[in-house]
């Protein structure tokens, strides 16, 4: 019997998980104590950005799939919800996972085309794919992407406004917490181990029997599903949508990339940090859209060179803390902590 064992948890990760669990619980109860919704309203968008950031991080930080086409899945989610709830009369909240499913289905042929492209060209390839879907939605007679569309009261199922706002908020919370949980669980699984072996040495990983393309495709489809769900909830939260707003590369991909890069790409905590930085900047720069983009874009570009692991990476250099139990460590006599 060996006295060595493998452990993933650390004292601070136990604390980290407890903290995030408590935070989730507090956020869950928010509708009961935030009477006027002054905290709820901005939090919906913040939570949805956490979900988008975690998914982009899963793709780029762990699977090496640098996508500039995430707006495609957001847009599909938005127009999916318009179709399911508005045209077909399905309950809007039950439609949300259906929208994710459509996004996941579309992501398969998209992967089929773009997985042929290497690195930077994959990034632009996903962008082209998103443009194709946007143009198709824009020209489609039934989806009417060129017009301003919104969910009418009937298709919202006759729920009271207060109930609707709360359910939308809870969905956003579930998507944010769920996205973080997906990243943690994927990383703890065999797939996560395969992903990191591919990231560190693709040839070596192949030699050890990792099916690289299948592993990447699995992550791609998961991220598409979740991003599609986010797109649907974005419409529940917004009064209306056009194909330009629903498929916006700036709102749903560029900003998300900047958040992840500033917070820390390839970690679980980093994207959350990035969204908080964004939220803070956003409060300071209200109504100055161009300056917001100049500052965030410039900051991300500079950080990519001087601190590729973002704020979380800088924190790690100072004190290596692991808030989520995802890394395997050997514990036993003679092994340094």
């Amino acid at each position, binding site marked *: 019997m060996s006295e060595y064992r493998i452990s993933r948890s650390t004292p601070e990760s136990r604390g980290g998980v407890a903290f995030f669990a408590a935070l989730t619980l507090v956020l869950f109860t928010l509708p009961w104590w935030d009477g006027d919704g002054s905290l709820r309203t901005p939090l919906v968008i913040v939570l949805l950005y956490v979900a988008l950031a975690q998914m982009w991080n899963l793709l*780029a930080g762990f699977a090496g799939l*640098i996508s*500039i086409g995430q707006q495609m899945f957001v847009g599909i989610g938005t127009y999916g919800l318009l179709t399911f709830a508005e045209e077909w009369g399905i309950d809007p909240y039950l439609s949300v996972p259906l929208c994710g499913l459509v996004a996941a289905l579309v992501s398969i042929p998209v992967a089929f*085309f773009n997985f*042929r*492209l*290497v*690195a*930077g*060209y994959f*990034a*632009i*390839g996903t*962008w*082209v794919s998103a*443009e*194709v879907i946007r*143009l*198709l939605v824009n*020209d489609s007679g039934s989806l009417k992407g060129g017009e301003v569309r919104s969910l009418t009261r009937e298709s919202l199922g006759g729920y009271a406004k207060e109930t609707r706002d709360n359910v939308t908020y809870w969905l956003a919370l579930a998507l944010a917490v769920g996205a973080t949980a997906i990243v943690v669980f994927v990383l703890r699984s065999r797939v996560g181990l395969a992903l990191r072996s591919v990231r560190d040495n693709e040839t070596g990983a192949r030699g050890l029997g990792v099916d690289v393309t299948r592993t990447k495709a699995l992550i791609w489809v998961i991220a598409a599903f979740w991003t599609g769900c986010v797109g649907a909830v974005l419409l529940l939260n917004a009064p209306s949508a056009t194909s330009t707003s629903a498929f916006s*590369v*700036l709102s749903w991909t*560029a900003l998300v*990339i*900047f958040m992840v*890069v500033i917070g820390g*790409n390839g970690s679980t905590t980093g994207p959350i940090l990035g969204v908080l930085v964004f939220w803070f900047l956003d409060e300071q720069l209200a109504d100055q*859209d*161009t*300056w917001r*983009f*100049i500052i*965030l*874009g*410039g*900051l*991300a*570009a*500079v950080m*990519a*060179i001087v601190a*590729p692991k973002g704020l979380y990476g800088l924190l790690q250099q100072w004190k290596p803390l692991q808030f989520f139990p995802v890394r395997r460590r050997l514990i036993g006599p003679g092994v340094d902590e």
Partner: protein
Amino acid sequence: MIWVNAIVQGVLLGGLFALFATGLSLAFGVMRFVNLAHGDLAILGAYFGVTTSDALGVNPLLSLFIVVPAMAALGYVLQRYAFNYAIGDDPLPSILVTFGLGIVIQNALLERYSADSQGLDAGSIETSSIELTDDIAIGTFPLIILGVAILVLGGLGLFLARTRMGRAFRATSDDPITARLMGINDRNIYGVVMAIAFATVALAGVFLGIRQTFGPSDGPALLLIGFEAVVIGGLGSLWGTLLGGVIIGIAQTVGNQLDVEFGFLNGPLLGHIIFLVVLLVRPNGLLGRRSR
């Protein structure tokens, strides 16, 4: 006849696209560098042309003598002091740096020049044309652009094949470490590559500004067109880039004609579809090397 005309105009437009895509093709060929700000740099060049020709009161074509060298210098400096630190086995830093730069350029232009579209006025050359038949006329200026594109691509090909520096480009592209051992300063080579890329994209940007109106957020659409031209032609092949540019040019004009005649498809969409089909049947492009 309208279809023949659409194809002729498409070939001419393709010259502009090819000229625009040259820098993208070269940077990828020599240093596997994908510049996501390439479209925004063309627009920056066009605005630079506006400011220069306004300030000096000269024809925008003359402003090229200032815009092109200035952009080349900017390219060299950016590569030496920023992009070089992002180059490596991991493609993420270079993508982030150029994507961030592109967004900064778009919004800085928006802040400085507003969202209104602008145009460059080059005088009578813009309207003069050669009539082939009653229905088909070739614009003098688009023809000049196509000629310049062929000259630039051909000249670059000769430069790569015949000169000492061109040989250093190719050596660095094949194996940067060995090239360094042979006394080649690869950091400098990369700087020169980016200077050439910025010079050609500025040229394309000013030409574009004379041909049509433009706005601060037109860069990404251009980037996608250039990228499609490079991939259709084949990565690393300069003549392939010309062919790819012409194919995308024809797709734009024919697609727009289809939209006008039958209300179905449009230029950008047809371009994207042709790109996807080529990607499916010939992943290495029409003139690309077979192996990767």
